[in-house]
C-alpha cells in the first residue's frame, strides 16, 4: 500500500513538475511528430536566415540584443555572422570552429573543448532536426495550433551544470526551427529567433570556408 502510494506520488510529481507552456499541450506520444519532422528535415539540405538574439540577464534586468545572418548546410556546416552590436563570425565545419572577432582569427578543434563541442552540437541538432536523437538530453514535445515546442532537459553532467533546459520552437507549416531558447540555472536565458528563412537555397562553399 505504502509502495503504491509512493509510486503514485512520484508519478504525479513527475507530471506536475514537467514544465507547462501557455498555449501548448503535452504530446506524450510524439512518434507522429518525430516521423513528420524527420521527413521534413531529411528534405532540408540548407537553411539561410536572419536571426535576432536576446540574452536576458534576469537579476540585472538587462537584455543584450544581437542580430546577424545564419547559414546551415547539411550535414555539419554552420555559419553565424553577427552584425550587431559588433562584427563577429563563427563557422563550424568538419569538426573545426573558426572565430573571427575584429582582426583576430582563431581556429580550434571542436573536440578540444567538450562543452563547446556539446553546445555547438545543440545548435546543429536544432537546425538539422536531430535533437530528439541526442542522448545528452531527455526530450519532451508540446504542441500549439501553430507550432511544436521541444523541451530538452540535459542529462550529461557538464550540461546540467550550465543549462536547466533548452527549448526549440518549430513551425508547424514547414517543420523548420523558429526559436531556440536556452535557460541557464541562474535564471538567465538566451533566445535566438530566425526570420526570413530560405530553405534549400544554394549556399556556396566559400560561406563555410575556414582559412
Amino acid at each position, binding site marked *: 500500500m505504502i509502495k503504491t502510494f509512493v509510486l503514485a506520488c512520484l508519478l504525479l510529481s513527475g507530471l506536475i513538475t514537467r514544465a507547462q507552456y501557455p498555449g501548448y499541450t503535452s504530446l506524450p506520444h510524439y512518434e507522429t511528430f518525430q516521423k513528420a519532422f524527420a521527413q521534413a528535415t531529411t528534405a532540408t539540405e540548407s537553411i539561410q536566415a536572419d536571426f535576432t*538574439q536576446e540574452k536576458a540577464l534576469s537579476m540585472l534586468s538587462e537584455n*543584450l540584443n544581437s542580430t546577424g545572418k545564419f547559414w546551415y548546410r547539411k550535414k555539419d556546416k554552420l555559419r553565424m555572422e553577427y552584425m550587431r*552590436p559588433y562584427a563577429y563570425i563563427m563557422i563550424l565545419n568538419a569538426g573545426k570552429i573558426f572565430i573571427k*572577432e*575584429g582582426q*583576430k582569427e582563431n581556429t580550434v578543434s571542436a573536440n578540444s573543448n567538450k*562543452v563547446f563541442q556539446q553546445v555547438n552540437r545543440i545548435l546543429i541538432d536544432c537546425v538539422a532536426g536531430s535533437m530528439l536523437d541526442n542522448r545528452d538530453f531527455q526530450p519532451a514535445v508540446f504542441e500549439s495550433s501553430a507550432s511544436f515546442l521541444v523541451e530538452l532537459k540535459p542529462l550529461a553532467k557538464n550540461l546540467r551544470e*550550465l543549462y536547466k533546459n533548452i527549448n526549440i520552437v518549430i513551425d508547424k507549416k514547414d517543420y523548420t526551427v523558429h526559436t531556440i531558447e536556452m535557460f541557464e540555472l*541562474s535564471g538567465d536565458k*538566451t533566445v535566438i529567433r530566425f526570420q526570413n528563412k530560405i530553405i534549400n537555397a544554394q549556399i556556396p562553399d566559400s560561406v563555410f570556408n575556414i582559412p
Partner: protein
Amino acid sequence: MQKIKTDESCVLLFKPDFVRATYKISVDVVGKHISGLLVMKQMPDSSTRIVFTNEMGFSFFDFGFLPHDRFMVYQIVPQMNKKALVKTLRKDFDLILFRSMDSSKYYALADSNLVYHAFPQSSGINFYITDTHCSQLIKMQRSSNKKPVMEAQLYDGSGGNTPDSISIRHLNFNFSISLKKIPALAPQ
C-alpha cells in the same frame, strides 16, 4: 621616490561611474583568446554586478562586488572556477572599481613627475598613479610586496564618467583584458 604628505581625496575624484555599462571584452590568456560582452551595473543595494557572456549568450561568470569590500560569485562556468583565477579577477576589478581603499592605511610616494597613491591590501598594494598636481590619473597598478604585477588604464572617462575603454595587463604572466564600451544595446 620619497614619501609625501597628502590625502587620498584627490584620487577619489577619478572614480569612474559604472551605473550601467556594456563593454566588448577581449581576453588573452597564455595564448588563448576569448571575447564577448561584459555588463557592469550598479544594483539598488549599491553593489556592482559584473557579468561576462560570450557573443552567443553563453555566460562565463557573474560576480557581485558588495559593500564593505565583500565579494560574491553568483555564477561561474566550471572551466573558470579556479580559486587563483577568481581571486585575480576580483583583485583586478577591485582596483578598477576603486574598492579596498582604506584611508587609515593610505600613504603617497612621489618622484619628479608622478605621485603614487598607495592603498595597502591584505597582500600587496594598490597604487593609483597621478601627475604631481593630481589633475590626471595616469594609470593604476597592483603590486606584490616586491614588484608590480598588474597595470590598468581607463581611457576617456573617469571622475564620474563611464570610461570608453579599459585595459588590464598582467606583468608576471601573459594575461590581458581589453574593454571597449558599446553604445546602449536597445531592442530593434
